[in-house]
């Protein structure tokens, strides 16, 4: 190739340079299943936190995970999002993406967003900055150094602020928000990245009843377009949003089905619902 041709190739305006491209792999959901978790085992110093756990989440589904304290719900999310390495088992995102050999940042960039049990927002930043940081953008060091908000991104932030109901608080420091508002901001941060799969750990803990209702609305409205997995202890809340409920017990799945099925399931009544009638 001549120098001229090379230059033309490099300067082509109909495509971005490879290093600027989103290295997003398409998620293959040809079997309607978005997340496969199979035969997951994990022990902490001999204690089996996850015990041959199998879980399949369909695309667009809203799934609730319940289970007593220490059942392994948070640990399961840790494994899916790359925070903790499991001892054995497989986790696939779609048909072809193996999540177990990826780190947190890669998994996040694939479109898996996670809300922690304890709300974590960047307290020293404004609500606006929190959302800006969560934008779906090139997250490498140099592009971030020279990044500035485009009009489109600005609109996206506005949209999410609207969704999470924090429009009036955009210039507040996140640290000054109420507990419930922090939870929403964290959900908003996940939404900024347009995730395929949302893993939400105890979203209504510490919320007032009204706040809880709004959160339920928010999560149900997200399902369909996105896939949402919610961990929650509050049975009222679970009843109000859930279509399918999975019960975890001592690191494996005890039962799965609609809320009514679950409530009538003999095993579940014994180990879980039975404790707190």
């Amino acid at each position: 190739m001549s120098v001229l041709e090379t230059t033309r190739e490099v300067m082509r305006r109909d495509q971005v340079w490879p290093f600027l491209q989103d290295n997003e792999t398409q998620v293959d959901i040809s079997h309607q299943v978005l997340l496969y978790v199979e035969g997951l085992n994990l022990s902490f110093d001999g204690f089996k936190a996850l015990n041959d756990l199998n879980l399949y989440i369909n695309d667009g589904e809203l799934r609730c995970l319940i289970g007593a304290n220490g059942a392994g719900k948070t640990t399961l999310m840790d494994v899916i999002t790359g925070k903790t390495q499991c001892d054995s088992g497989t986790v696939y995102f779609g048909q072809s993406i193996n999540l177990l050999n990826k780190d947190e940042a890669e998994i996040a960039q694939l479109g898996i967003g996670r809300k922690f049990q304890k709300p974590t927002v960047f307290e020293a930043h404004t609500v606006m900055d929190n959302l800006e940081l969560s934008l779906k953008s090139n997250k490498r060091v140099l592009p971030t150094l020279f990044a500035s908000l485009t009009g489109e991104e600005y609109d996206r932030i506005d949209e999410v602020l609207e969704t999470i109901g924090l429009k009036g608080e955009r210039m507040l420091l996140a640290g000054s928000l109420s507990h419930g508002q922090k939870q929403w901001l964290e959900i908003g941060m996940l939404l900024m990245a347009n995730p395929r799969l949302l893993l939400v750990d105890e979203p209504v803990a510490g919320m007032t009843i009204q706040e809880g209702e709004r959160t339920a609305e928010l999560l149900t409205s997200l399902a369909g377009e996105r896939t949402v997995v919610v961990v929650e202890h509050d049975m009222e809340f679970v009843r109000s949003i859930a279509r399918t409920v999975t019960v975890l017990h001592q690191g494996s799945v005890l039962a799965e089905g609609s809320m009514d099925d679950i409530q009538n399931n003999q095993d579940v009544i014994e180990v879980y619902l039975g404790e707190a009638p």
Partner: protein
Amino acid sequence: MSNAMNKIMGRYTGWARINGESKVAPFVVLLLAVTVLASACNLLLPAGSMFYVSTYTITLLGKYLCYAMLALAVDVIWGYCGILSLGHGAFFALGGYAMGMYLMRQIGDRGVYGNPELPDFMVFLNWNELPWFWQGMDQFWLAMLMVLLVPGVLAFVFGWLAFRSRVTGVYLSIMTQALTYALLLAFFRNEMGFGGNNGLTDFKDILGFDLQADSTRVSLFIITALLLCGLLILSKKIMQTRFGKVIVAVRDGESRARFIGYRTEHYKVWLFVYSAMIAGIAGALYVPQVGIINPGEFSPVNSIEIVIWVAVGGRGTLIGAIIGAILVNYAKTKFTAIMPDGWLFALGAMFVLVTLYLPKGLMGLLSQLQGDKQPTAPVDTPLANDNREQKSEGQA
């Protein structure tokens, strides 16, 4: 009512934070004004005049500004990213040694042994030729490159290993102490080729200018002030970019930042390299002004002292680090003149007092006095919130 009040207060303070960040400009103007004034009073006034500033004072001020730059380097990494480095003295010393090697080569045949090629200490050790790493160090540009490169590369390698293995907190601080201690021991050895425990000294001139001349002293002082201001502005700008916001995000919630998709270890490594280079520049400016560099600069205690300067001034504010370094070192000069042995105790006491009563340092105190506005970069937001809530309740 109280809720609405809270919102208004909150919104107001939210803006105040953004406005507060522009305080760099007046500070830079003040710093440069003092620099020009002191220089003019040295060069233009006769020695007998009441306003004459002695060359000794100029050099002392220049030294303080070098320390201020070093404190700036530590604040960038500690105040904004929460990485408590107790080894920045090492980067400072390495920058200093690079400059010292250049100055050594400039002595030429004016040394005691009159060897045009070899520095005195090498002749004394019966060495016949320059070691490879001394080659080319008579070139100013190469020496300056090394001032940046040596601390930068060391910080890169160290940071890469430490941050990639996710070493944080106290363990990281201990590792940085070990790093500077290891270098201290290495540089004490004569075979290393850096003059052993005597270090490098007896410098004559820099770029052909006599180091003892008033005009050279004043020039070095002015250059230090200019570079300090430049680096202060640059650092502030960097912290205002999205990169800077990620850095603060890493400080306040590293795993959250990871789960949003940032490779936090890369961010930390590059910030560490940037910070180490600033420390290297500070060291390079320090050596021609004080006239010596020896392994003592690697002493672990030095690195701890820097952290105290930053804490006194207020971490996470940049300006605070500079003010802290200047004030503490001024106090040190005065104190050691009266009670040479008591300084470390005074320093320790100061650190304890600041930690207990001024968690945000002098800058925090300052912004409290200025009508209780939000300090520039809130390090302890929970505390700030408590204040705000109490206050808005009081008003509601």
